[in-house]
């Protein structure tokens, strides 16, 4: 089975004005994700999970230094020109974000925004693009899609907006969907529906999904395999059931133990040891930043 997404020793660091040796945000990540698979990456803030997702999409800012290799369908993404990246995004690979409102133009009918994604990549006439957009809206569960084609985003609920963003992301049948915290802004009942939708769409279309989240429960619901990130490194990858049953890395064990949902009521929750405490990592960063501010 060939990998849709293949990463080899991927590193990302950000050049800053003051630091000669920038600290890597992503460090030596290697990973293969296969066709039709949902691969979840969990990590706390600052673990590098979103930076990794943005590296796959070629969305990092100009001061980012990317090393290693990221191949999507056997095509190298690292070092690809802006034009080539733009034609790849929304076509072969798509991305959805936490806040669907920020991904949609507030003044534009949502249907036209989906149709635009199609016409940006294929020479389809307006009528066909509209028909396809309506079909997509129906597929992601917008009731009475044809009638709602012309509505602007604020006429939809948060969950419906995320469905519309998913419709736009899937408009050109991408091989790979990168979803960065796609349900974090949603209520739990809506979150469950959107996760079920992502699961159904990958079954129907064979889409490969890279799911980025901080929520252990979310990855356990839909992922086939899970990778745990901390401090820019991928500490452990395992089949989802295996990871939750027998976590092999001490950080993973500590993270699972810190989840109140599993612990007996009123008991003290085990605290992550200092070596794996995200706060101590951030404390070091803050001190560096404060030192930098004094030097300026």
């Amino acid at each position, binding site marked *: 089975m060939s990998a849709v997404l293949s990463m080899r020793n991927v590193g990302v660091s950000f050049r800053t004005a003051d630091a000669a040796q920038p600290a890597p945000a992503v460090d030596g990540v290697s990973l293969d994700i296969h066709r039709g698979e949902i691969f979840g990456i969990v990590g*706390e*803030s600052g673990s590098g999970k979103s930076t990794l997702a943005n590296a796959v999409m070629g969305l990092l800012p100009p001061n980012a230094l990317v090393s290693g290799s990221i191949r999507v369908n056997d095509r190298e993404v690292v070092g690809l020109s802006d034009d080539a990246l733009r034609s790849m995004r929304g076509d072969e690979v798509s991305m959805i974000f936490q806040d669907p409102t920020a991904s949609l133009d507030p003044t534009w009918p949502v249907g036209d925004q989906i149709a635009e994604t199609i016409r940006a990549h294929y020479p389809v006439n307006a009528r066909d693009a509209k028909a396809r957009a309506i079909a997509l809206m129906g597929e992601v569960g917008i009731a009475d899609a044809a009638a709602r084609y012309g509505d602007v985003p604020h006429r939809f609920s948060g969950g419906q907006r995320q469905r519309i963003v998913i419709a736009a992301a899937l408009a050109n049948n991408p091989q790979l969907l990168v979803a960065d915290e796609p349900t974090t802004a949603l*209520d*739990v*009942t809506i*979150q*469950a529906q959107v*996760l079920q939708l992502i699961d159904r769409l990958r079954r129907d279309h064979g889409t490969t999904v890279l799911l980025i989240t*901080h*929520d*252990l*429960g*979310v990855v*356990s*619901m839909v992922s086939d395999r899970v990778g745990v990130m901390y401090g820019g490194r991928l500490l452990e990858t395992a089949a989802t*059931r295996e990871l*939750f049953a027998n976590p092999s890395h001490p950080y993973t064990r*500590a*993270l*699972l133990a*810190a*989840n*109140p*949902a*599993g*612990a007996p*009521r*009123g008991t*003290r*929750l*085990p*605290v*992550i040891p200092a070596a*794996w*405490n*995200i*706060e101590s990592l*951030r*404390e070091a960063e*803050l001190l560096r*930043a*404060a030192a930098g501010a004094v030097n300026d």
Partner: protein
Amino acid sequence: MTELLRVEHLRKSYATALPWGRKPPPALNDVSVVVERGKTLGLVGESGSGKSTLGRCILGLTRPDSGAVIFDGVEVQALSGRALAAFRRRVQPVFQDPFGSLDPRWPVGRSVRESLDCFGIGTPADRERRVLDLFDRVGLNPALAGRLPTHLSGGQRQRVGIAAALASEPELIIADEPVSALDMSVQAQILNLLMDLQQDLGVASIFITHDLGVVEHVSDNIAVMYRGSIVEMGETEAVMNHPQHDYTRTLLAAIPRPR
């Protein structure tokens, strides 16, 4: 167990103009709850369920349309002047984002001290020491008191928020999503701190959250809110293990839990 807070038939609608004279659905629709001394009531619901409005009505930050909030036998809405200040001293909030409640230009120690100054607690010289004690109490290095909020991590800022709430030695803390913005490892530390405070100081609390896993862990009793009403209320074990209302069952089924 003695009763500390009683909320009776609270109603609140936000006045928004809808076309054709339609009325917006009420944020609170005949809500009644009781909190006993030293106990934690978990208030759980999705966005728009009215849980934060209820918290704000109890704090006196939002005026209900009708109904009563009775704290320690006294109707809160009738309070003014000194009596109101005394009430505020006994009931303190902790919010989701302490960044929003801390002045960005003030060292965080000054924000904690402001509460002591405001309620006239201790002598001015004494207050300096109390601030450092409070930092110690919430697990913060007192050396951090001179730092600006931007130079603290999210978990540290939430500890400052809790220290500021504790400064006036309240009997009731209304915590509105106090751990929702925090990473899992930090969330565990803050939950431990809140449980310790309840045990050591006997503070009662209302813990408002959308996260059933969190609320189950810290609460003695749970009230489930849906569209402005409390649809189910009872002891934590009973609500979690034998939910009576359909909405509670839906909510429990939707929690993503590692299997």
